């Protein structure tokens, strides 16, 4: 039980990084539909960096660079060139898959035994981790999960209590108002995308450098899209996103628990599909939407 919850929390970490970054970009009016590719680039870049340098820190820096590179291209094409976001994302996701797999071959050739790095370890926080029940769940985690605890309140603060947060929110609702107020709309959007690239890079590297310590081309396997969906589920609000990420993390942890239980009556495909079905149901049943009014619409001045 405690294990499952701790695992759930750990599993929700990369989802949260991805979803929060998606929330910020979408608040500014752009969907980051290259999110799956950015995750993969992060996982790939992170592994390469860490393997070659032997340092996880450098790995994560590489991951950030790789993610940012992809969202930068995405930003240029969708924000500056104003091309359709879903379509551009599709192209970049295919490209990222080709690129990561191809470059892995270029860099490492055909290794005989699997390449591994030592993954990021958990750090039990003294005292706190000894609290019964709560301790082992919350305070025996890795650094990135600890950072996650702060990301949500920090996002809330930035979004609602700072002038830049106001600009971000306004950019997604009515970019013209932002433009007229003397703020460069496209710059805001591209900035959000670059930050998202960094977050997604870390999220992707979480799989290769924290959970596993290795890289394969199927390592992300749709989890970027889950983060994307969580942003919708969370109704574009920081705490909503937190709830969504935890829900998906929990679903994944419980699903796996069912898979290893013998004599289970429910087919495991059901659990695999469950988060998606849940997203669909919630999207349909929720009656008040907080979707940014100009989400997905490029800003055309002339």
């Amino acid at each position, binding site marked *: 039980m405690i294990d499952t919850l701790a695992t759930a929390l750990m599993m929700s970490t990369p989802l949260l990084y991805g979803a929060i970054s998606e929330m910020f970009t979408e608040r500014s009016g752009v969907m980051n539909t290259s999110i799956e590719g950015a995750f993969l680039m992060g996982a790939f870049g992170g592994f390469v960096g860490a393997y070659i340098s032997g340092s996880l820190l450098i790995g994560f820096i590489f991951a950030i660079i790789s993610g940012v590179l992809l969202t930068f291209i995405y930003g240029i094409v969708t924000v500056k060139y104003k091309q359709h976001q879903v379509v551009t994302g599709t192209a970049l996701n295919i490209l990222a898959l080709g690129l990561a797999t191809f470059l892995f071959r270029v860099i490492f050739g055909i290794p005989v035994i699997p390449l591994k790095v030592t993954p990021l370890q958990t750090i039990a926080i003294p005292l706190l981790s000894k609290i019964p029940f709560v301790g082992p769940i919350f305070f025996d985690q890795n650094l990135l999960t600890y950072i996650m605890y702060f990301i949500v309140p920090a996002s809330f603060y930035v979004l609602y209590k700072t*002038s830049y947060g*106001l600009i971000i929110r*306004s950019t997604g*609702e*009515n970019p013209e*108002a932002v433009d007229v*107020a*003397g703020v460069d709309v496209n710059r805001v959007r591209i900035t959000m995308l670059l930050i998202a690239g960094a977050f997604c890079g870390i999220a992707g590297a979480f799989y290769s450098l924290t959970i596993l310590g290795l890289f394969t081309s199927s390592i992300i396997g749709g989890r970027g899209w889950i983060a994307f969906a969580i942003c919708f589920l969370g109704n574009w609000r920081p705490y909503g996103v937190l709830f969504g990420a935890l829900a998906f993390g929990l679903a994944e942890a419980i699903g796996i628990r069912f898979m290893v239980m013998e004599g289970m009556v429910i087919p495991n495909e059901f659990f695999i599909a469950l988060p998606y079905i849940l997203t669909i149901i919630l999207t349909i049943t929720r009656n008040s939407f907080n979707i940014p009014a100009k989400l997905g619409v490029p800003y055309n001045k*002339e």
Partner: protein
Amino acid sequence: MKKVIELKNISKYFAKVIANKDVSFDLHEGEVLALLGENGAGKSTIMKILYGLYHQDEGKILINGEETRIDSPKDAMKYGISMIQQHFSLVEAHTVTENIILGHVKGNIDVNECTNKIKELSDKYGFNLNPNSIIRDLSVGERQKVEILKALFQNTEILIMDEPTAVLTPQEITNLMKFIKDFVKGGNSVVFISHKLNEVMEVADNIVIMRNGELVGNVKKTETDEKKLANLMVGRELNQTPTKSISHVVENENVLDMTNVTCVDRDGIKVLNNLSLTVRKGEIFGIAGVSGNGQQELCEAISGVRELVDGKITLLNEDIGSLSVYERIKAGIGYVPSNRHRDAMISDMTIAENMFLKSSFENKWLAGKLIDKEKLNSYTNNKIRDFSIKAHGPDAKAGGLSGGNQQKVILAREVDNGSKLIVLDQPTRGLDLGAINHVHKSIVRESKNGKGILLVSTELSEIFGLCDRIGVIYQGELQGIYSPDELTPEKVGLLMAGWKEEVR
């Protein structure tokens, strides 16, 4: 007087239009400069260039005598220039305060401090705004005030107002004029864009007139009059607005009969309350009132977009209350909605396709199973000619037309759709004199053809000039139905504000 801004030989080309050609004029300290011109004359464009939203293709801008590059609104703000856009640029989901401070505060937001500051500012100009209201709950008049406060919040010296009165009530217009006069007293300057001659004559010191992107006049108010301005603006002599006197015979047969109609909005609040009226054949029935009092809902109840919760609507004695929009179109109801961009046309489609929009179900356009393109085009060409729509042909994108011409396209279509009844909601809002004239003539012509016309307008002169009977609407109810000679503008003003005669 000192020149603060000099525009020199500015030209601006959009892909398909010359928006400005070789435009030069100056703005002086402490002056109200009116920019007058028809729809599409290039008024907004030249001011957007000054405000840094567009960049000129040719020409230069001098500020305080020095040549200056303005690349973005940020640059413009540095020189104390603010601009209130023709269409509100407010974030509907946010509060008044958030809209006003957007982009103008740094770091953390101290909401209380900002709110107080805005409250002060608002009180100073007698605006009576609650800084914590959400924009989407505000009336258009209030939104206009928010736009003005946005400018004032940044210590503006040069305030550009792009058609600020288009959506205001007479009372609100009077207040705005007063504000402008106060504002320039301190040495500030205002550019006031409009095509309402009376307002221009009231408030301006100097008047710049544009036509087709070019400057056609730059005159002092004291040296001109409305007639001269009108001729400059349109480039030809204007007909008088047609009035009832040159009108027509109203027959005694009811086209439209609404009895005790009640409608509610999303939240279940009554937006039409027990409203009854009749429109007879050949009659122009006017609805006067401050906008937002149920006019749009009234029109939608007739067109079928809005459901009735109670009451009855008949068209030529047939109950249409339960018919769909499509069936009502087929029954002969034409409707020109007030928000034409949103509700009446498809900007990305051609004029011909927009003509086809409401009659796509009709077999007359079919050759076999496919659309008869030739027939549609020749029909559209006729309309372009009849309504003197400025466009290069039926295949021109509707979105590329100026506002007035878009309205003509819609009118041309609805005149044919509305074979029995035409409902017009603010048909001349934002239009220039030439276009207004054209619309008015069309309305009168159609009523002469025996159609019933329901004309909703906030423009009293329009109502008085055209209508056979007038209903005044207030909070979803009719305050009474009058013939024009029973009413004075003062009395209408009172009725619009909610006063009701005791017995009638």
